[in-house]
């Protein structure tokens, strides 16, 4: 009666198990290994033998034990209940496992991703007789205060609604029945399943234009990422990759954030779990945890599940994107994912590419990043959904010639290059302004000028030029000393220094400084740059640079970042006016 494919283990080597008698199984089918029902996935077939990567610790497995195929590819459950949860790489709820199994992750532990007992209040938005297609919204579930979970018709289903009702249901209760074209009845629940290695369908992709506001000054003003864009943060250890990822997860303007801790530290996940519920989403005012989903496959957890974790994460993100939300995915770190890939490849005895990484590393990475984008979602209401993907890369020794870093750079549009020298100086975020880039700058500039202030992009360009000139001037100073510089060059150095210290430097652990709105960023930049513009004029009129540099108001401008958002406008106007009048007074004295 049970017609699932059954095989027998013939070889065990770390996370790789080879089973015999699997001829009828499909590639990428999920299998249950041994009596302990460890979850694995078929990654190679050789005649009767299947190579299986096992997502759990394989100690204790031996030849002769059974392997049973489930006949389905690795899939995840999607539906109400995901938000605020913490899951492992194959979407097992870790908080439930703690209650079930204790503090440590035991083999063969299982709990469904979505709670089967919990009821959700479903509010129907369609009625009997409506013809619906994949992606159409059947109704809403208010999953958290800040997020309405839109229950959609699964992508490939369509038909006429024969029954639908509002009320309290569990995720497995039928909420709606469809009659398809052939007269067959389809029962729909609030839960869908989707295979993680296949991207969820949409109607079309749209080129991104709007910036994703992150509240991080060097990102928003200098190296912006667009909504629906892709970005990478490579950097050596200690340069602040994880802090940047956390900052983005906290403050980026998104409806849903999926944070994938892939082969990283356990304590970092704990940090998120403990800190996020305390923080307030600047957009909705509710706790940040009400929009966050954590996938935690820490470095000591089984390596194969790490490989799956980024697919699990992005599939969830796509599901929320399909509802028409703006979703951000942070993957920290893709290098650990690549290492998992390398380990499996080594065990399969594949011919290695660079540094032992498999030859398909680049194409796998590209597939991951291509799942980001702004799309017109399935469904007849023409909604757009946004998926922004930001991946951390941990190149060995910070060396960007590393194959993972190089493959990533080919796939992403924004590159925030973290610099250990800046980090040693405690200049955070340690984004090097000379080597980073954003291919969205041009599009975003137009948006900033239209929506924030019309000279924003001009200010930014001038500031960028100043920073470039500073690095050239620094070279000269290093060779012949400060005295050799003209007064104008000294002004440039001084202005660039304050740009670095008072604008680019941002303290993530400071209550106020941790997030800066675009308006305030513009105001800071404008105050700092007016010192340069006006200073040039002042020096041109033979003013003394010493007195210019020592103007007391400069300290106040430097401390402008400490001014809370609600007081920023008044303070800005005051500082702007005072700077002009102080400068005029200085002019008069010089005369």
């Amino acid at each position, binding site marked *: 009666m049970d017609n699932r494919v059954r095989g027998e283990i*013939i*070889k*065990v*080597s*770390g996370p790789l198990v080879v089973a015999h008698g699997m001829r009828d199984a499909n590639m990428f089918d999920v299998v249950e290994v041994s009596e302990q029902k460890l979850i694995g996935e078929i990654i190679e077939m050789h005649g009767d033998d299947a190579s299986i990567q096992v997502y759990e610790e*394989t*100690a*204790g*497995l*031996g*030849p002769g034990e059974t392997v049973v195929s489930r006949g389905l590819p690795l899939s995840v459950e999607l539906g109400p209940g995901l938000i605020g949860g*913490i899951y492992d790489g194959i979407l097992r709820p*870790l*908080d439930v*496992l*703690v209650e079930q199994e*204790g*503090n*440590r*992750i035991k083999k063969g532990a299982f709990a469904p991703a979505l709670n089967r007992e919990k009821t959700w209040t479903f509010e129907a938005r369609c009625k009997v007789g409506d013809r619906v297609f994949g992606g159409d919204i059947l109704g809403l579930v208010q999953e958290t205060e800040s997020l309405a979970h839109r229950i959609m018709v699964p992508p490939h289903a369509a038909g006429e609604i024969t029954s639908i009702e509002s009320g309290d249901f569990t995720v497995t209760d039928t909420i709606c029945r469809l009659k398809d074209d052939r007269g067959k009845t389809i029962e729909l629940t609030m839960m869908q399943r989707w295979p993680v290695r296949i991207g969820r369908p949409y109607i079309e992709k749209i080129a991104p234009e709007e910036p994703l506001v992150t509240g991080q000054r060097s990102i928003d003003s200098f190296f912006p990422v667009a909504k629906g864009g892709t970005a990478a943060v490579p950097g*050596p*250890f*200690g340069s602040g990759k994880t802090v940047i990822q956390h900052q983005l997860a906290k403050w980026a303007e998104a409806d849903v954030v999926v944070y994938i*801790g892939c*082969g990283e*530290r*356990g*304590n970092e*996940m*704990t*940090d998120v*779990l403990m800190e996020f519920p305390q923080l307030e989403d600047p957009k909705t005012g509710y706790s940040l945890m009400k929009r966050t989903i954590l996938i935690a496959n*820490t*470095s*000591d957890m089984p*390596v194969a599940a790490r490989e799956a974790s980024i697919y699990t994460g992005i599939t969830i993100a796509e599901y929320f994107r399909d509802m028409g939300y703006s979703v951000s995915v942070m993957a920290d770190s893709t290098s*650990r994912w690549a*290492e*998992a890939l*390398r380990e499996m490849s*080594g065990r399969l005895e594949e011919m290695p590419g660079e*540094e*032992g990484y498999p030859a398909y590393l680049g194409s796998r990475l590209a597939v991951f990043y291509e799942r980001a984008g702004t799309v017109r979602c399935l469904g007849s209401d023409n909604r757009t959904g946004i998926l922004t993907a930001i991946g951390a890369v*941990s190149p*060995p*020794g*910070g060396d960007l010639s590393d194959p993972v870093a190089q493959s990533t750079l080919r796939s992403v549009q924004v590159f925030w290059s973290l610099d*250990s020298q800046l*980090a040693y*100086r*405690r200049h955070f975020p340690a984004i090097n302004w000379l080597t980073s880039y954003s291919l969205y700058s041009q599009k975003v500039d137009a948006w900033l000028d239209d929506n924030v202030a019309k000279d924003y992009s001009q200010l930014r360009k001038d500031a960028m030029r100043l920073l470039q000139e500073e690095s050239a001037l620094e070279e000269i100073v*290093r060779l012949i*000393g*400060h005295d050799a510089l003209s007064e104008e060059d000294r002004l440039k150095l001084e202005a660039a220094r304050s740009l670095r*210290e*008072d604008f680019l430097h941002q*303290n993530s*652990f400071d209550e106020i400084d941790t997030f800066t709105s675009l308006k305030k960023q513009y105001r800071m930049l404008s105050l700092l740059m007016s010192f340069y513009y006006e200073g040039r004029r002042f020096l041109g009129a033979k003013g003394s640079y010493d007195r210019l540099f020592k103007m007391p108001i400069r*300290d106040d401008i*430097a401390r402008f970042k400490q001014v809370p958002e609600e007081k920023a406008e008044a303070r800005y106007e005051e500082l702007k006016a005072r700077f002009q009048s102080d400068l005029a007074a200085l002019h008069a004295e010089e005369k």
Partner: protein
Amino acid sequence: MAKEYRTIEDVAGPLMLVRNVKDVKYDELGEIELVNGDIRYCKVLEIDGEDALVQLFESSIGISVNTGKVRFLGRGLELAVAADMLGRVFSGMGQPKDGGPEIIPDKMMDVNGTPINPAARDYPNEFIETGVSAIDGLNTLVRGQKLPIFSASGLPHARLAAQIARQARVLDDSEKFAVVFAAMGITFEESDFFIRDFRRTGALDRAVMFINLADDPAIERIATPRMALTAAEYLAFDQDMHVLVLMTDITYYAEALREVSAARKEVPGRRGYPGYLYTDLASLYERAGRIKGKKGSITFVPILTMPDDDKTHPIPDLTGYITEGQVILSRELHRSGYAPPVDVLPSLSRLKDKGIGKGKTREDHANTMNQLFAAYSRGKDAKELSVILGEEALSEIDRLYAKFADAFEQEYVSQGFETSRSIEDTLDLGWDLLSMLPKNELKRIREDLIDKYYKGA
């Protein structure tokens, strides 16, 4: 009675192939009986049909293909643990080495441990005072953290580690404290230094030591750190103790791992180290931490020597990616006679922000820490410039910074290996130094704190 196999086929380096086995499991422990009755341990690395590839934990000297007998024990490598372990010295394989009796086990624990569920972890946020200013003030250690010391040959990392073990205390000092020390491949002298220091300060009574010396089999080193961490887990989570694990030297451990990998003819990653070095190191480092609802904690200070002082070498590099910061020792400071020669700029404690501030150390801690870093860094830049161009080339303010950097190294960093400074002393000393600079240079400190603590004109 376990089945006995006389089917050893190959013995090569640390690997052995046993044929025609039945019901042998992956990662199972085996024992090899030599013709003279000696017992050696090994574990299954790969099981392919009826062939088991095993890795020896001990030397292969004397193993005979003809007469060697192998028994598989149906379990992984285990350690007998009990509270009586405190004050004892064990070999790298967990056998008593101090002439004392065998441990009467409270229980047997698998040395590989099991990963802690991230949802069960408690965040480390309790400040540990080590009495070392460069650590307490700038790279603060907290309970449950893993903070390695990156050293190099010839540098006094052992003295710093011993100083930490001796001086470390939490501000609420009523709880039980233990030290687990693991030596892997170090010399007799270095290990003897630790034992003497522990004895001198009375720490030996609450220490458990696992010693694998340079002349012990390299392969044994793969088990040693796991033995130590298993003992630490028992003390921390079964006996409610706060455990400090000191481990030296991770570099030799990684070399042992490379030896096994090379023998298996695996595709190597960087510099011949196996591609799974990161995962393997993580399986050690991640065993540190705190668990919700448990009183004890494991704080982990591994020591590694960077080959050729190179921080980008795979061992320090991968370690830095897993651990929560690093304390780096500088040869330059050591040469100048500063002790401990902690190079504060590239050193880092990632968890410091959660362990400091009002109610933990002092309200001004975070601000002064950032300011000290920034000022010292600028001072070092100024000093570098003055080497090339002469001091005259520096601006007035840069000259002040250069002076600050010198004073910082001499007074703040160089406190000697015997001095223990309270956190208040460390913070006050920081203000003494910062007061060398004019007020308006202290941009990273809140104004009200400057008003309260600044001592300059």
